[in-house]
């Protein structure tokens, strides 16, 4: 691939370099193929594009602004801007993906969506879009996470969704994905699996990146209009990698450095090796025998032992770099952004803020123009943050 083609389409079988592809039971292959052709068709259809953009505007709150962060900029000696996905409906970038996938579900003539969720953000977004478009919705959530995120379970139920606690394996996000895949096998005729990140079998990693690329496309135009031009760095947190892929897509073919920030306990690029899980070949955290290990992070949204295959490719090809931030660095960043800029970020997003704070004047030269993708708001996390701060005294 030449430099100018970064973040274009994967090959015909969904490969980004050696990563990606399709590793699913044969029972699901026809559904993956159907989805691929439906998405190709829809994405090339001006009427679908128009509907997707209109819904995101009138229902989703787009475009989200780019906000200069003057006080934090001054403290760090940088020129910082935030793309405000926290201001999108349901409080994060997840709405971009689910609006696209629910519109596609209707276009395919299916009447029901299922989804996995970790922290509950993608589950809430899916339940929201399902309500808006009159689709039945079932969300699979690890039993451990249903207890950690009681309020999000209640939100999904308020929105009319059914939440199924998953009791297999480690009872967290990775098992919720397994369970959603298992369920999909038995209801694939009338049900779409609305996957929440740039992961899974082809076409999901590509499709979800395309649906999230609106972040980067908007931000690039907004920075241009503000007279900022191309930033020196674009920084985003990475769980599966959808908000990062979305913002990177607007800058992949510029001179901007692209930086993804993983949770140290779920750092698939830092600690992982090539493997196959959840329908894709990517970088995964696994033991010496190829058994997948659990990720551990203060933020449930980054608690995933893998990373989307396109990120694995961007990492190994050197176009993007991936850094890790430990739990202990996250709360400080959350407090600083809250106190200096009046924005309480999600714990996931706070990882990206923490890396910027840590590397200002180091890996990030003084005076750099930095675009932070502010992937979500922290409201969902305040109870947890309060508890941790209290325990610390």
């Amino acid at each position, binding site marked *: 691939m030449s430099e100018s083609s970064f973040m274009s389409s994967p090959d015909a*079988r969904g490969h980004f370099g050696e990563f990606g592809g399709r*590793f699913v039971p*044969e029972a699901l*292959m*026809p559904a993956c193929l159907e989805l691929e052709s439906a998405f190709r068709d829809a994405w090339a259809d001006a009427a679908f594009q128009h509907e997707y953009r209109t819904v995101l505007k009138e229902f989703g709150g787009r475009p989200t602004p780019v906000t200069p962060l003057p006080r934090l900029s001054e403290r760090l000696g940088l020129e910082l801007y935030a793309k405000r996905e926290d201001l999108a409906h349901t409080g994060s970038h997840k709405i971009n993906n689910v609006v696209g996938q629910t519109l596609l579900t209707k276009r395919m003539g299916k009447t029901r969506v299922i989804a996995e969720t970790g922290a509950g953000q993608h589950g809430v977004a899916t339940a929201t879009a399902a309500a808006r478009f009159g689709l039945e919705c079932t969300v699979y959530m690890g039993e451990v996470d249903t207890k950690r995120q009681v309020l999000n379970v209640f939100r999904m139920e308020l929105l009319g969704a059914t939440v199924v606690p998953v009791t297999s394996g480690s009872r967290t996000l990775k098992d919720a994905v397994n369970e959603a895949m298992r369920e999909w096998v038995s209801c694939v005729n009338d049900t779409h699996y609305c996957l929440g990140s740039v992961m899974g079998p082809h076409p999901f990693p590509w499709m979800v990146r395309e649906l999230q690329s609106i972040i980067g496309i908007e931000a690039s135009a907004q920075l241009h209009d503000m007279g900022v031009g191309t930033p020196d760095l674009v920084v985003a947190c990475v769980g599966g990698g959808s908000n990062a892929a979305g913002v990177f897509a607007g800058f992949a073919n510029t001179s901007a450095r692209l930086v993804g920030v993983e949770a140290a306990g779920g750092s698939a690029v830092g600690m992982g*090796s090539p493997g*196959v899980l959840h329908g894709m070949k990517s970088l995964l955290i696994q033991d010496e025998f*190829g058994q997948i290990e659990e990720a551990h992070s203060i933020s449930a949204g980054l608690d995933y032992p893998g990373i989307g295959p396109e990120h694995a490719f961007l990492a190994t090809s050197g176009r993007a770099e991936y850094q890790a931030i430990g739990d202990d660095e996250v709360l400080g960043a959350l407090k600083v952004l809250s106190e200096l800029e009046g924005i309480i970020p999600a714990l996931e997003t706070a990882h990206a803020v923490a890396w910027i704070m840590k590397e200002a004047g180091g890996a990030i030269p003084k005076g750099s123009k930095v675009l932070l993708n502010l992937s979500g708001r922290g409201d969902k996390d305040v109870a947890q943050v309060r508890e941790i701060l209290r325990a610390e005294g």
Partner: protein
Amino acid sequence: MKHLEQQLRALRSSGRKALVPYFVAGLTPDWIQHVEAAVLAGADAVEIGVPFSDPMIDGVVIQEGVLRSLEAGTTLDSVCKDLSSLSTHVPLVAMTYYNIFFHYGLERAAGKIAASGLSGAIVPDLTIEESSDWRVACDAHDLANVFIVAPSSTPDRVALLAPASEGFCYASARMAVTGRAADEGDAKRVVGEVRAISDVPVYVGIGIGTPEQAREASMVSDGVIVGTALVQLILDGGDVHAIEDFIGSFRRAIDIAPVSA
């Protein structure tokens, strides 16, 4: 033609329906004796399940078996080592998820399992589109790579899968993960679609839980695969005698089935 397929074609020619039990390797310390008991009671081939942490197409019973086996420390190497103490005349087929082989190294994994007496492999999450490297490794070690055909497989996919499947072709009777069966499924239709394209033996699996279901499936196919019900028996503490009784009841059921066309 791979050795496994020669054997299974010969079995079919003899007029006998194949009975293929599935075991989670390493589920109990005496799992090798369990396999021997099944063979004694009439199994014609055995699926050796190598546990993987994320069994995407398995239901709760096999998940539980896999988890217990992993907790007991089972690895691909330990399974192969255990198999060296197994003496049996029937073919053994590995069944596991792709990451186990991929992580081990495809060529190394194929060599290792072939050297341990396995003559075939079923890798349910390895699509035919992604299978070329693995099949090269299988060819080098006379391992038969078995593909699964599902009720949802379109005619063009059956036309790809059936001729490529070696040893036998696995006809999935249901759109479900292992261990969820209520209806009679699509066995007859799926087997018919495979047979229209290939004369490889066709075995029915997914949701064969009772001797009666096995009998019906065997009437429309060349054999049956029994997994979840057997794993459940072992999870419940069933010993070698219970396994012999269990397999014996399936054997009798499929032996009285009239030979199908």
